[in-house]
């Protein structure tokens, strides 16, 4: 192969360079303060803007402001699982350890986001719907997503050998994704079957006015960056733990 051709190829492959733990640690270490700072900035701006500088909704009053936490948390609860799905696939196909560790690191964050979404939803639902909880399709499928997170985390915790754990949790993540999707549609079917046209509509589906839109977008960006920060920190911790384990093993062998 000529030298001229080899440059763009190596550039094209550059994403996989971060699969090298050393490279990943360098880059993530350098990027972390920036990502974290930006997350804090976006969250601060989005939440303060949303809470103090937007008018109350004419029907919902000031409870509408919970939207700045509820919607981003719900988004991240789903996207964290999607990220785990992608990283699990990368681990199964290309055997990059960083990828498996990133999936492991993302799961508790995703679970917390799911719980935040459910909890803020309950707090919002109480004054609006008159109930903390209803077996609405969205709520139910989110609860089921939370159960999938629990199983995934429990499986990671139960297996001693890290590679076996990574393999099995990846398989579970793939199968779980299919079943989570199936459950989503099954729940839609089930609820219509029970209530014959749900009386509760989730207000976030309605188009919202610009006054709420921009702070919401800022807040969502803040949550995305926050998620990124937490996953980076947790992945770095996992890598360090692996290194520590390797050192201990080496010491025992010596």
């Amino acid at each position: 192969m000529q030298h001229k051709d080899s440059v763009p190829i190596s550039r094209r492959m550059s994403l996989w360079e971060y699969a090298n733990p050393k490279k990943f640690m360098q880059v993530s270490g350098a990027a972390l303060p920036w990502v974290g700072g930006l997350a804090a900035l976006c969250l601060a701006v989005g939440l303060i803007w949303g809470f103090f500088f937007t008018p109350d909704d004419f029907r919902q009053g000031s409870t509408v402001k919970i939207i700045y936490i509820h919607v981003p948390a719900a988004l991240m609860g789903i996207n964290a699982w999607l990220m785990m799905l992608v990283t699990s696939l990368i681990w199964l196909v290309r055997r990059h350890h960083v990828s498996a560790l990133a999936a492991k690191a993302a799961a508790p964050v995703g679970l917390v986001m799911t719980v935040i979404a459910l909890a803020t939803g309950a707090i919002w639902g109480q004054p609006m719907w008159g109930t903390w909880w209803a077996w609405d399709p969205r709520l139910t499928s989110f609860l089921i997503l939370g159960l999938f997170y629990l199983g995934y985390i429990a499986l990671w915790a139960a297996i001693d050998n890290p590679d076996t754990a990574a393999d099995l949790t990846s398989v579970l993540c793939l199968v779980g994704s299919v079943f989570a999707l199936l459950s989503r549609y099954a729940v839609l079917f089930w609820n219509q079957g029970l209530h014959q046209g749900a009386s509760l509509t989730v207000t976030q589906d309605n188009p919202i006015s610009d006054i709420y839109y921009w702070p919401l977008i800022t807040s969502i960006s803040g949550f995305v960056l926050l998620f990124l920060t937490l996953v980076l920190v947790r992945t770095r911790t996992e890598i360090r733990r692996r290194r520590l384990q390797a050192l201990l093993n080496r010491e025992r062998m010596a």
Partner: protein
Amino acid sequence: MIALLRRDMAVATRAGGGFGLGLAFFLVVVVLVPLSVGPDTAVLSRIAPGILWLGALLACLLSLDRIFALDFEDGSLDLLATAPLPLEGAVAVKAFAHWLTTGLPLTLMAPVLGVLLNLPVPGYRWLLASLLLGTSALSVIGAFGAALTVGLRRGGLLLSLLVLPLYVPTLIFGAEVARRGAEGMPVATPLALLAGISLGCAALMPFAAAAALRVNLR
């Protein structure tokens, strides 16, 4: 494959195989329900399809860890993995054996227990049909969960945590068929969806389970 099926059936039905335990558990659960919600026949006949489905599901869950655990302990699973029969095929056969020894008896027993819960008369047919279809999906999904947790010392609780969320679609459609049947409504849609889930699971889950087994046998 037939030999493996016969062997698994023999192991499951002999003394110590726990063949009757699932059925007894099903009976006890169904007996406990009226004790907890009260003997009002109107309430009982309303919730009967759901209770029978839930009871069958839990009884099925009880015996899942036996699918692979015993073979894993005495090493015959290693032999199965190196046998000319593909591991996917072995998994499918073992799941089928599990269904024959658990799902099928549970299905046949459900109408008897339906009497205890005042299940409306038109419901029996559809309860039988939905359980017959649905328990096969429960067995295959359960085989996947058992394959994931086969190497663990205390996998029982973890197995339920992993498998129960996977059971959600099957339970929803299965119980829906039974409920609609009991209320005399058309059941074609949920029945078709339930059949789709069962066939899809039977076709695809052995591959996932075999992948998990290979990891555990490494």
